[in-house]
């Protein structure tokens, strides 16, 4: 059962999928599991749905692990899922959110890459797709989205860590999300969780042009990182991806924004300055606790600003 699961440890793909089954069984009144597709190596791509009723309600999307070596993101996603079911009915903000909206969490967005980090290469980032005539393996799933595909901040070299792939949504892991969100048609916020470097960012990555509600996103990000900082004193910087970090094309949050999801954010979780992707498991829970406060801030704003 999930009660013996250690939320302060890293786990394999099998352990996470087993946890998902137990979690859904234990919270079947609110949580269901949806397979939205299969990965390149034919692993199930699973999404947890948190709903207290109704159908096609306005919804919030959260994904973790699109870059497989960023283990803190999957672990934070699992803790967050557990937090949602344990706080519903207690935390008034979360309770109001779930009374009006659904929440979808994809814990392992790149299952093939994640399995590979456990079996062969802990520092693998991309998915595991292969194509005839291409010597190197994998596409950077966060460069494979239709918005700005192939632009600056992505690479046409298949051996590059930011290889965008042969065409937009060529990768099944990306196409599955696009199909699911597009078919659902009522997503109001998208949060994509990465690591590391302690940043909270919003579109665009593909250009320096500000989005139409940039001011709203700026102040929402400001409030979110303030709420995060108050938990364990960790500092984040925030802003649009292109002005805070670098140009990055074909990315999740740009696609979400261009698809009409006004509240699209990308987290770069902590590393506390010296571990990078190898953040010790002792920091999983503090990281998840602080991230939760930022996520809750974004979800509350989405609830209070329907569109």
């Amino acid at each position: 059962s999930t009660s013996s699961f250690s939320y302060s440890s890293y786990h394999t793909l099998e352990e996470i999928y087993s946890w998902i089954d137990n979690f859904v069984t234990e919270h079947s009144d609110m949580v269901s599991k949806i397979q939205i597709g299969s990965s390149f190596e034919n692993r199930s791509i699973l999404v947890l749905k948190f709903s207290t009723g109704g159908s096609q309600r306005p919804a919030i999307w959260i994904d973790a692990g699109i870059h497989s070596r960023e283990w803190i993101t999957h672990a934070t996603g699992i803790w967050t899922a557990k937090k949602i079911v344990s706080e519903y009915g207690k935390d008034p903000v979360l309770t109001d959110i779930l009374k009006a909206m659904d929440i979808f969490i994809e814990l392992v967005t790149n299952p093939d890459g994640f399995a590979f980090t456990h079996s062969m290469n802990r520092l693998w980032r991309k998915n595991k797709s292969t194509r005839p005539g291409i010597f190197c393996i994998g596409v950077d799933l966060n460069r494979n989205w239709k918005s700005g595909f192939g632009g600056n901040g992505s690479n046409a070299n298949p051996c590059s860590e930011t290889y965008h792939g042969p065409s937009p949504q060529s990768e099944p892991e990306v196409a599955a999300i696009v199909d699911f969100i597009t078919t659902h048609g009522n997503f109001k916020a998208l949060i994509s969780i990465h690591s590391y470097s302690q940043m909270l960012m919003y579109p665009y990555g593909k250009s320096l042009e500000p989005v139409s509600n940039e001011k709203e996103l700026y102040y929402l990000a400001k409030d979110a990182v303030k709420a995060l900082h108050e938990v364990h004193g960790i500092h984040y910087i925030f802003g649009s991806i292109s002005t805070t970090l670098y140009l990055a094309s074909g990315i999740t949050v740009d696609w979400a924004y261009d698809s009409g999801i006004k509240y699209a954010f990308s987290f770069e979780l902590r590393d506390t300055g010296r571990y990078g992707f190898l953040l010790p498991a002792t920091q999983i829970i503090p990281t998840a606790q602080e991230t939760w406060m930022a996520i809750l801030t974004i979800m509350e704003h989405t609830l209070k600003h329907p569109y």
Partner: protein
Amino acid sequence: QMNFTGDQVLRVLAKDEKQLSLLRDLEGLKPQKVDFWRAPARPSLPVDMRVPFSELKDIKAYLESHGLAYSIMIKDIQVLLDEEREAMAKSRRLER
């Protein structure tokens, strides 16, 4: 499992765009000599790169010859990986 014994992560603080582009030049080398953990972005942000043990001498010489200040963020990646793996195994025993 790939072994990363002796691989290091260097944190480089580029002073300006010129130095950033010197770092970007490293990305295109064949075969790949560095793996950017934090890619060159802007002078105010550090660049973290994993350097295989076999390339350490050349890469450090490159950085020093171009006046690029760096520190060693992770001295031996494999040590951290072994600790991570041990922690997972211990946790699994406890869960059981």
